[in-house]
């Protein structure tokens, strides 16, 4: 089991993750973040790195790849664009990982709500698993069910939504929610010259939405930006369309819209176009939906930027978890993806025409 420390290969691709990042977060410093998005190019590099490792391990004479490992992936059902992206990337990662490690068996299970996800966790555990990668519906609700999984000695990776008790997880992979809000807020502050009227459309009343709102407030702090209104759009195009129509009826002058999600931005843009209002200078969404990235790349003035929060983070988590079993790479800790501001200049890097989201 010690053979990787001999080659020194274990620290190559993920040397900067793990506990160092956790340490920096605790000290309030930004985490080291090298890549915002594990895009195809980056993924390829990492895959090649891992493939090289796999070869190295084969050379040592032990067929670690044949070791039987059952990995369960429990994620929300595709109820909006972003979770749809999560399901897509989970299925894709399952294919690549199972091809790479013949002994690895991955079960992807989607659940429509928190209660059924708790049931799914029980069912998956009963089948006998070695690792669990989960994107919980709701942190508070699922903390105990995940704790029970952990108590069976199963390796637990939590994605996106942090548990109420952080000691349960072995690995935490997430986008940076406060940062997503802060980056959007700072951009709006800068573009409006520190003064203006902004309306906000929120997602659903859960932790990540709260974190984003707090980050946004921090981003616009110290300016004369006035937030006229905050209403829930439920991360849905149709609901965001309605809320935006109502904002347009309620306020005669709006300078910018922050809707924190690209799905909702679609509805917002449609409502603005219909009302034929010229006072709104731009809309800031978030996540990195391909249609919106394309608009940014094309220089659309209404969508000048986007803030990344990639659904492919589930694939990052599955990759890291698998490498814990097969490549003996130290991965325990937190892996926080950056909330990169996508501008016209760098948009090409983040555009994936084949992705469903």
């Amino acid at each position, binding site marked *: 089991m010690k053979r990787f420390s001999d080659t020194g290969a274990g620290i190559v691709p993920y040397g900067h993750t793990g506990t160092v990042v956790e340490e920096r977060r605790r000290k309030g410093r930004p985490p080291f973040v090298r890549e915002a998005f594990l895009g195809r190019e980056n993924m390829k590099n990492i895959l090649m790195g891992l493939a090289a490792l796999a070869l190295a391990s084969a050379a040592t004479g032990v067929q670690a790849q044949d070791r039987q490992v059952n990995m369960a992936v429990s994620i929300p059902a595709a109820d909006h*664009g972003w979770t749809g992206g999560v399901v897509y990337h989970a299925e894709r990662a399952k294919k690549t990982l199972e091809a790479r490690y013949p002994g690895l068996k991955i079960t992807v299970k989607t659940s429509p709500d928190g209660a059924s996800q708790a049931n799914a966790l029980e069912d998956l555990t009963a089948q006998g698993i070695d690792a669990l990668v989960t994107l919980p519906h709701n942190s508070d609700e699922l903390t105990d069910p995940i704790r029970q999984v952990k108590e069976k000695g199963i390796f637990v990776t939590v994605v996106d939504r942090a548990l109420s008790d952080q000691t349960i997880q072995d690995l935490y992979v997430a986008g940076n929610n406060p940062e997503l809000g802060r980056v959007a807020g700072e951009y709006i502050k800068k573009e409006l010259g520190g003064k203006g009227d902004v309306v906000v459309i929120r997602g659903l009343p859960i932790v990540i939405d709260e974190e984003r709102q707090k980050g946004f407030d921090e981003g616009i702090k110290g300016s004369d930006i006035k937030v006229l209104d905050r209403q829930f759009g439920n991360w849905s195009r149709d609901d965001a369309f309605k809320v935006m129509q109502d904002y347009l009826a309620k306020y005669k002058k709006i300078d910018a819209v922050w809707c924190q999600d690209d799905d909702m931005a679609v509805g917002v843009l449609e409502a603005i176009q219909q009302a034929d209002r010229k006072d709104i200078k731009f809309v800031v969404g978030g996540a990195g939906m391909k249609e919106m990235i394309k608009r940014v790349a094309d220089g659309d003035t209404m969508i000048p930027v986007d803030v990344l929060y990639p659904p492919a983070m589930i694939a990052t988590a599955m990759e890291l978890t698998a490498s814990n079993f097969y490549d003996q790479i130290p991965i325990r800790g937190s892996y926080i993806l950056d909330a990169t501001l996508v501008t016209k200049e760098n948009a090409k890097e983040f555009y994936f025409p084949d992705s469903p989201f």
Partner: protein
Amino acid sequence: MSNTTAAQPAKRSLGDIDLRAVAPFVALAVLFVFGAMVNPNFLGLDNLTNVVTRSAFIAIIAIGATFVISAGGLDLSVGSMAAFVAGTMILFLNTGAVAGDSGMIAAAMCLALATGALCGLANGLITTLGRIEPFIVTLGTMGIFRALTIYLAEGGSIAMKSQELRAAYRPIYFGNVLGVPIPVIVILVVAILGAFILYRTRFGRHVMAVGSNEEVARYSGISVNRVRTLTYVIQGICVAIAVLVYVPRLGAATPTTGLLWELQAITAVVIGGTALRGGVGRIWGTICGALILELVGNIMVLSDMVSEYLIGAVQGAIIIIAMLIQRSLGRR
């Protein structure tokens, strides 16, 4: 403009001295006064046009639901069915199988109507021939239609690819004839047709008969199964018509398309005075119910009184109060 839509049928019903039928319109009027007090912008033409236009989906679907519920049935699958019909319609539009934008759109509309009718037929046949409770059957098809949509979308959304086609189709939601938005015209046409079928034809009377007492209807020589199945087909066609208006709005079907529309449609039907147990159907009341639902949401956003966390509670309370007003009028 929504004032006129609401007031006309109200006057007609007043002649019949049936206060129960007028009650939803009184509730609507109370809501109008409340909205005007909350925010002066509420009575603006733009705002009212927006609200009436976007109530079109629920209103049209609820007209179909009025038939199903009057006949003693229930359809929980309408929201998922809307997403499925929208998805297949957009996929067809993306194939570009027919030359010319208008020809393509017309073909896609026919396909959507056929898909909707078939989905409804499936619901109807499983319910009647399989002799299973409609609640269970449509709960099952609800899951099936939703999953098929997500499957077709590969977990993402299905969007119209051609921008020219999108531009050509857009007026169906955003356009207007003499200042009346096209979706509002569609509501009126569907409602007039629905009212005619339900009140003036033999089939309509059979629907009521089956809904009030199935056994009596059967002994009177009515083919109960045929009538029930047809109400589901009508429901399917209404869903498809709603989709025809929905697709040009955002040009995409997503996993959230039509989410919980079934509950909104059923609520609209019940607020409108149709009995959930069947036997009574009120098309114009249903339209009124759909407007009330949409207005409540609109008033909440326009008001600054309620915390965004409590909007759901206030919406629920307003719906219950609207029902109470209706009941108290009905008793007089």
